[in-house]
């Protein structure tokens, strides 16, 4: 009884945040346009490289196109630079004191609102992009997953990827308690992680040695895993490893993040925010 009540607390946080996220329609429309243009330009650039040397392509052109469209459609789920200003503000202006007054764990509350924020954004943005991606002419058209099993694995991996990205952001929030320059930390993380996650160019396009290392890092468990599982071109063994890594990193990042937040709570209590 008690535990179900405490879960409901976070559920209502999630719901509130989700509805709030759905309000920003103009922003969503603009976001869709932006992401569509972005994806389109990326795909043309890839096709120019493909023309130059098709043999050097690490995945099929079709898979690459699909990767890019999925990335643009679900960007809100797994990007790590979409951090919430409100959370930073509560930390920097001391309003965190209010949050500490409530009978909730800061970590759980923040993770609930972050997840809600990501899902509400993705819900608004993904379908128009996906529809267009399935309608554009052939070489640039997105493909369907080969079978239902692959699709389900993709969904599982997508959820895990979102969770890993959110858990990583929690660590960034936690760190801002301990640094003099939260803005600096943010911008550094933003660029570095985006690159390591495969946001600039997909991880398969990296040189083999770099790629081998990057695939083990938690960042590859964010967008790289679901986006590559989707097309079904990966051998089953690799998919298993990927999902395993996602599970592993999710647990690791949550453990790190929640203990960091606990430390931060203690620090905020001592210093008065």
């Amino acid at each position, binding site marked *: 009884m008690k535990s179900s009540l405490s879960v409901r607390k976070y559920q209502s946080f999630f719901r509130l945040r989700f509805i709030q996220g759905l309000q920003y329609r103009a922003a969503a429309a603009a976001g869709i346009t932006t992401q569509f243009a972005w994806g389109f330009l990326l795909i043309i*650039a890839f096709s120019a490289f493909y023309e130059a040397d098709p043999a050097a392509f690490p995945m099929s052109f079709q898979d690459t196109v699909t990767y890019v469209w999925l990335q643009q459609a679900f960007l809100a789920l797994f990007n790590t630079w979409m951090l919430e200003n409100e959370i930073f503000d509560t930390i920097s202006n001391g309003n965190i004191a209010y949050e500490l007054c409530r009978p909730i764990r800061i970590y759980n509350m923040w993770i609930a609102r972050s997840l809600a924020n990501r899902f509400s954004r993705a819900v608004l943005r993904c379908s128009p992009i996906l529809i267009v991606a399935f309608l554009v002419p052939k070489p640039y058209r997105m493909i369907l997953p080969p079978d239902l099993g692959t699709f389900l694995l993709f969904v599982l991996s997508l959820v895990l990827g979102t969770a890993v990205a959110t858990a990583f952001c929690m660590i960034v929030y936690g760190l801002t308690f301990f640094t003099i*320059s939260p803005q600096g930390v943010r911008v*550094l993380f933003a660029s570095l992680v985006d690159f390591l996650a495969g946001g*600039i160019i997909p991880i398969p396009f990296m040189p083999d040695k770099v790629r081998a290392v990057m695939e083990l890092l938690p960042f590859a468990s964010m967008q790289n895993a679901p986006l590559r599982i989707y097309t079904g071109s990966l051998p089953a063994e690799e998919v298993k490893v990927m999902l395993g890594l996602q599970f592993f990193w999710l647990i690791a990042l949550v453990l790190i993040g929640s203990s960091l937040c606990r430390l931060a709570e203690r620090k905020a209590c001592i210093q008065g925010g």
Partner: protein
Amino acid sequence: MPRKYHDIVDDGSTNTNARDMSTNTVARDTSTNTIVRDMSTNTLAQDMSNTLARGGSTTKKTSALRLWMRYIGINVRCTMQYKMSFFMMVLGQFFVSFSVFLGVYFMFQRFHSVKGYTYQEVLLCFAIFLMEFSIAEMVARGFDSFSSMVRTGSFDQVLVRPRNEVLQVLGSKFELTRIGRMLQALLMFVYAIPRCGVDWNFAKVLTLLFMLIGGTALFSGIFMIYAAFCFFTLEGLEFMNVFTDGAREHGKYPIDVYGKKMLFFGTFLVPYALVQYYPLTYVIGKNDNPLLIFLPLLAILFLIPSYAFWRFGVRSYCSSGS
């Protein structure tokens, strides 16, 4: 990716000049009552000197350039109040562009050319374009954060000052941390210039200079349009990022890589190609037409419609008083 890193970063930044006064009411000052002093003497003298002062104040106008330098000075001093934050931000800005560079680098580890451009030529293109962008961004940053000026109403304060609004808006924010991005552009220049196989002569150096001038003007114009949109809506401005950050990131490759339609778009609609693709072909020796040297200067004309749109925005702001 498509969102702006600096937006995310600067939203909560500490050096906004106009703030809500209602914060910080805790500290009380007690020194005010000393004001109550007898001032009835020398009223006549005051009056006379004021007449003089008023006459003096209208004699000569401080030049726009001097005022702008003054704005930069005050911005720099504000930034330097938070040195640690400044260095972290510079580093961050550097990495934002560095990761894009890494992407290009790794792509060319695998492919050796794209649409006939070598790695070094692409780097040169990227360096020039990034430099154009970062100069414009540093200068015209006031436009970029203009939405908050409209939202907080500090644009009203601009309007009650006897100066051109553009000058004041530009002065409101001069973003020194963009040096980080510029540094990245410089590094790529240093690497690419000796290696790109260009036989540098006066005409080519001049072309490069004109590209920087034209490109800075073009991006400033785009920033101005972005700001002008804020007069009409504060929502959904994100789509403008395609033309700013999007151009910056995708403009690492010469525009013809994106095909004929994009080239047409970049020539006649938003003239990126005038400050990137066309003069670049001259610099790297793919086209010998000397007219291409001066072509980038044509992009300065883009400021005309930008400014017209801005004026339109200001007028509509004054009649709607949002």
